Structure formats: structure tokens, C-alpha cells
């Protein structure tokens, strides 16, 4: 399946950092460094294979399932090195969401069936939660699944599914009981995207990339055993997954890589010497450092076997808003070049001034908007009364 597991956690952080750095410098393709936008599978296939061959696809999964089994401190080191080197994301819904979920809540059959193919990259996952009228209010979703013998028959529409055009499988939420109260009639399904009746329509984002899709379901037959958890208990399954998602979305990844880009620009544009810039940069640097600290705290909780609480939302808020402030400063420092779409020529080299800014826009929307995250913290952490 993969190379024999190694005990990375036995290394000191510094030694581990060297190993990771060497791995990236040795194997990661130069032309894919510091990618300005989300990469499609076709660009990342080779890198996925490399990760797979070395057993590096899933840094956070336990070793017995083929992951690297990194403890939190090591995971942060991994992310820092990855971002410092400008390593792009592979399509990773399987790695960051389906894997951990099945490890936690799947059946043995499901784990055996799905985990290995995530590690090899044979199967690529996408997420089907949101619908045109069920965004923040996800529980009002209407795509329905009706049991018919050994199959569920799925009808409805999902939207904003990231890179669904490259997905071989989708994990989705469907309504299986229309009579029950909102959250209680929802189930969690795993669906093969080649099943007849599925239509995928890619949509362009405002930065001009086809990053997400509408997905239509017309009498799509899904085997009964593809349900995760019990029927009508999908909301609970999804909620468990959401905390993985929030942990991931709050990871310092985005902010860290944006900060690397900002320092590159500071050098290219000669702004590094400007005291006004140095103040602004340092404020952001410290924001990212403390984001790292927060992240470490939450990941430690997970590896100690504790459940993540609603307070993990602060990670997503701080992470994405720090990312966004860095994107703003990149545009500001770019001065006139901040109006150019695509690479601009600075004396020291070329630089895409708007990509971080654009990428920051959806980060405060996806995975539960930051308003919704703030509602969660106010209500469930600070215990403030609802209106």
C-alpha cells in the first residue's frame, strides 16, 4: 500500500524540519511552486503520486491506516515547511475529511474500501453539502434520497462543490425523512460520481478559475451500504466532520503561505526597508505566529483523543481574517501594480499581486461563513442568549 511507516515523532522538531525541507526541495516540481490559484488534479497528479509512493499523502492520519501519524507539533512543522516552499494543495477532500471521518465513524468495510484509494489518489473526493437555498442554514437542505430496495434514489441539486469536476466520489448530505424536524431527517452518503443521473456544471469564480461546480442529481441510485452512520443521523456525522474541517480551514497554511508571498514581494519591490511596512509586516507575522500557537493547541486536543468543542471556530475566524489582511497588504505594497490581473514585472522579478487577495475572499465564506462562526462562539462558548 505504502512505504513502511516511520516514527516521525521520534525525531526532534529540527531534525524533522530538515527531513521535510529536503523532501520538498528534492521532489516538488519547481514550476508548481507558489501557485497563484487552486490547482486542478491534472497539474497535481504527479506530485500526488510522489507523496503516495513515500507514504506522505496523509500527514495527520494514524500510521495503521497509512498516514504519517504526525503529532501536532510535527504537523505544524510540516505545514510551515510546505508553505515556505510554496507547495500547492492536491485535491484533498478525501485526505482531510473523508479519511478522518471514516477512521472515526465508518465501518470496517468502508475503511477498507475507501482509505487505500485515497492514499493512492485513485479516488478523489468532493463535498456535496450546500444547496442554492441551504448555505448558512445547511439543515434546510432539500436534496432527497428515497430508499428503494437496496438503493437510495437521490434527486436534487448541490452547489459550490469545490473541484467536483475532478472528483470520482462525493460525500453528501441528503434528506431521508421529510416529516422529521430539520436536522433529524438528514443522512450522510458516499456517492460514485460516475453513477448515471449525475450532471456536473463547473462555475467560474471571480478570479476566473473553474474552482467549484453545481451538481445535479436525477434519479441517482446509490447502494444502501454507502451510508455513513445510521439513516437520519447524518447531521451528527456531518457535525463531527465539520470540526475536522474547521481545524483544517483554521490551519496556518493559508496565512503562512501568504506571508511568504508578502516577504517575497517586500524584497522585489524594495519595501523591506520602509519602516511603515516593517511595522505592518511584523504585526501580521505575530498574528500568524499566534495562529500557529492556537492551531497547535487544537491539534493537541485531537491527538489526546479529546473532542473538539465549538471554540475551534475561533481558529477559522482568526486564520482566514489574518490571511485576508495579508492579501490586503500585498495589494497595498504593490502600489500601481495592484491594478494588474496576473503577473507584474518588478525590478527583482515577476509577481502576481492580486491572487492572495482573491483567494482570501471565499475563505471567510466557505466552511461556514465567519458570521456563522461568530454566532457559534457567542452562543455556544460564551453562552450568550439568542434573540
Amino acid at each position, binding site marked *: 500500500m505504502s512505504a513502511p511507516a516511520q516514527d516521525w515523532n521520534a525525531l526532534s522538531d529540527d531534525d524533522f524540519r530538515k527531513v521535510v525541507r529536503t523532501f520538498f526541495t528534492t521532489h516538488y516540481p519547481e514550476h508548481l511552486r507558489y501557485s497563484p490559484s487552486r490547482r486542478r488534479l491534472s497539474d497535481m497528479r504527479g506530485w500526488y503520486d510522489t507523496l503516495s509512493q513515500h507514504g506522505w499523502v496523509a500527514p495527520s492520519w494514524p500510521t495503521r491506516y497509512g498516514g504519517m501519524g504526525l503529532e501536532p507539533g510535527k504537523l505544524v512543522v510540516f505545514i510551515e515547511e510546505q508553505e515556505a516552499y510554496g507547495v500547492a494543495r492536491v485535491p484533498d477532500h478525501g485526505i482531510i475529511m473523508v479519511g478522518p471521518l471514516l477512521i472515526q465513524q465508518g465501518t470496517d468495510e468502508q475503511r477498507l474500501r475507501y482509505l487505500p484509494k485515497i492514499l493512492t489518489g485513485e479516488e478523489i473526493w468532493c463535498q456535496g453539502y450546500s444547496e442554492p437555498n441551504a448555505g448558512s442554514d445547511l439543515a434546510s437542505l432539500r436534496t432527497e434520497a428515497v430508499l428503494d430496495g437496496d438503493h437510495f434514489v437521490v434527486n436534487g441539486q448541490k452547489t459550490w462543490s469545490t473541484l467536483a469536476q475532478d472528483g470520482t466520489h462525493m460525500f453528501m448530505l441528503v434528506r431521508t425523512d421529510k416529516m422529521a424536524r430539520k436536522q433529524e431527517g438528514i443522512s450522510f452518503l458516499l456517492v460514485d460520481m460516475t453513477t448515471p443521473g449525475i450532471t456536473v456544471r463547473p462555475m467560474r*469564480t471571480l478570479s476566473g478559475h473553474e474552482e467549484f461546480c453545481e451538481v445535479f442529481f436525477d434519479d441517482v441510485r446509490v447502494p444502501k451500504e454507502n451510508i455513513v452512520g445510521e439513516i437520519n443521523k447524518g447531521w451528527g456525522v456531518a457535525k463531527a466532520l465539520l470540526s475536522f474541517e474547521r481545524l483544517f480551514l483554521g490551519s496556518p497554511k493559508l496565512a503562512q503561505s501568504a506571508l511568504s508571498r508578502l516577504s517575497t514581494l517586500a524584497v522585489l519591490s524594495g519595501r523591506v526597508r520602509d519602516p511603515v511596512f516593517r511595522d505592518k509586516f511584523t504585526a501580521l507575522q505575530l498574528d500568524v505566529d499566534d495562529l500557529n500557537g492556537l492551531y497547535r493547541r487544537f491539534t493537541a486536543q485531537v491527538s489526546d483523543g479529546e473532542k473538539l468543542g465549538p471554540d475551534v471556530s475561533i481558529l477559522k475566524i482568526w486564520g482566514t481574517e489574518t490571511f485576508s489582511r495579508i492579501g490586503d497588504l500585498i495589494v497595498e505594497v504593490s502600489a500601481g501594480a495592484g*491594478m494588474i490581473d496576473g503577473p507584474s514585472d518588478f525590478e527583482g522579478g515577476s509577481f502576481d499581486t492580486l491572487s492572495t487577495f482573491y483567494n482570501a475572499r471565499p475563505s471567510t465564506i466557505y466552511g461556514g461563513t465567519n458570521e456563522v462562526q461568530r454566532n457559534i462562539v457567542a452562543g455556544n462558548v460564551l453562552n450568550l442568549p439568542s434573540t
Partner: protein
Amino acid sequence: MTKTSDLSERRQQQQLITESAAAFAKRELLPSALRSGSISHTRWQGLAELGLMSLLIPEDAGGLGLKIGDLVPALEQLGKPLLREPFIASAVLAGVVLAGSGTPKSASLLESLAEGVLIPAVAWQESYDLAGDHTSTKLSKENGGQNLSGRKILVTPGDEVDGFIVAASGAGVTTLVWVAANAEGVKVETRRAADGGEAATVHFENVAVTDDDVLSVDGAALLDEAQQLATIAVCAELLGLIRGAIDMTMDYLRTRKQFNRTIGSFQALQHRATDLFIQQELSAVAISRAVADFEMATDSRTRAIAASRAKARLSSAALIVTKEAIQMHGGIGYTDEHDIGLYLKRALTLSAWLGNAAEHRARFARLTLGEAA
């Protein structure tokens, strides 16, 4: 001293201009025009027919001889549904230079501009920084004639222009010369701006310049005045854009439902909507103050302070508002299919063009606090 009757006359005139601009905007402009990528010559003609091209041009140069304050409300109307055409770059920035030049060449170019059959651009910038060095392009005398060589960046509009007004260093002064777009030695590298418009890099290699093409031998002050006027004009367009983005977003907050409520009923969004409204009103007063200061100004320093005051506010406000507008639209705001994204892109472009907020704050500080420390 302006008499009260003059004032009210001026107001009436402004109202007429504003109303006709508003009617034109309603009839002809749609945000989606930004998606097409190119300039519409029909709309350009339409703007000319409104008389806008010659509004700032002095009467003795064949224009209407009005002031920036008369143009601002009209530009606001045009900016609201987003104006794709490079009105400010060509009619204000280039137009004012042509008007101040007073040569036979500039007179004939101005006439074509007023008729809506000329699209000129001013090529002045060489560094991304407003305060950077823009003087490497040289005009040199060579066997009887003159020769232009150098490279200009962020030239707006770029590849759809008829010609460039180029700022070049001559004999110790900044000389402004006219170069036709198809002249030998001119190479245009098109760069797309965020809003789909152009901001070209233009190379001039030994371009022959005749005496007729020299618009102003010592043109630094003229260029400076045109830049300050254009900067205030951009602010007016940005104010329109801000109003447009806020209107669109408030409509969305009133109609989109989640949790069985219109999302505009959530206090979290109401408070932030109010913050956007504050940005809009601050922007409006910043422009009014800048216009008043500019019109009273007798020196270039005061004019620059006025322009920087407005641009520092408007560049910042436009980005705050359009970013929040996207956020309040949720997922749909991040698609290319929804027009709110076009407001963000236009805001990015106009915020950076002619200096972003930080650059104008820096210039304001330099001019008001001095260079000390």
C-alpha cells in the same frame, strides 16, 4: 467673490448635467459591460454627445469651461452602474493636457476628442510607485529632428488608443509629446487590469517626433494639474461605485432568506451595513472638501493635497465596501456570474490607479507635515 445668483445658476447647470448623465447611465450602462473586455465606441460617442468630453476644457479652447465640481456629480452617476470606458484617462487626464497645450496639433486632437472619435492616453508612469522616478524616457535632438525612447507602464487605456501623450525628459524639463499609436518604434504590450480594462506597458524606440507633435516643451505643471484633476475625477467615479455596490448589497440583504428570515434581519449584518453606509458618507464629504479646496487653489501643492485627501479616502472606502459586499453575498458573491464581483474588480483597479490609499496618505503627509523625521 461669487454672487448668490451665480451659485444657484451653477447649481442648476450641475443638476442638468447630472440628470443627463443619470439618464445616459440608466439607458446605456450595465456592470456586465466589464465582462466584454473592450471599449464600446457607441458608448464613447454617447458620452461625447452628452458634452462630457469638453466639460473641463476652457472656452477659448472650444470647451464648456466648467470646473471639476460640475463634473463630479455626473461621474458619480456614471460610476454607479460601472463605466467600462476610459473616460477619466482619455477625457480628463489627456483632455486637460491637450487643452493646456494650445498648439494647432492639440486643438485638432481636442476637436476629435469632443466629437467622440479619438481615444488618447497619457503615458507618464515608469515606476509602480506614484512617488517613484518617472523620468527615464528621453527626448533627444538628432540630425535636425527629435527622438523619443523609453518605456511607460500602466498606460490606460493601452492597446485600443489612437495615440499617446508621452512625458519625456528633454533639455532639463518634462516635455509632453504626441505619439500616434501606429507610429514606427511604438510597441504596446497589453496587460489586463483587474476590471478587464487595459494598463499597457508601452515601449518607445527611437520614435521620430516632429515639432508639431510637441504639445508642451516645459509641461510638468500642466501634467501635474491634469493628474490632480483626474485623481479627483476617479474619486467621483469610485463614490458612484460605492453607492452602486451598497445598493446591490442592501437589495440582497432584503431578499435572501436563510433560517426562514431575510438575512438583513440579522443584527450582525445590520451593523456592518451601517459601517458601509458610514464609508459612503465619509467618501462623499471627502470629495466635496477636495473639490472646494481644488477650485480655490492657486498653487500645485494645495491641489495635490486636495486630490490626495480624496483619493486616500475613496481608494480605501471602495475596497472596504466591495470586500464586505462579497462577504454579505456569500458563495454567489464569489462567482463570475454575479455582478457584485465586478464592483470589486473595478474598485481594485480604480483604487490603485493614480495612487492607492497608502500612497496618497504618504503624499498628504509629505505635503502637510513636511519631509522631516
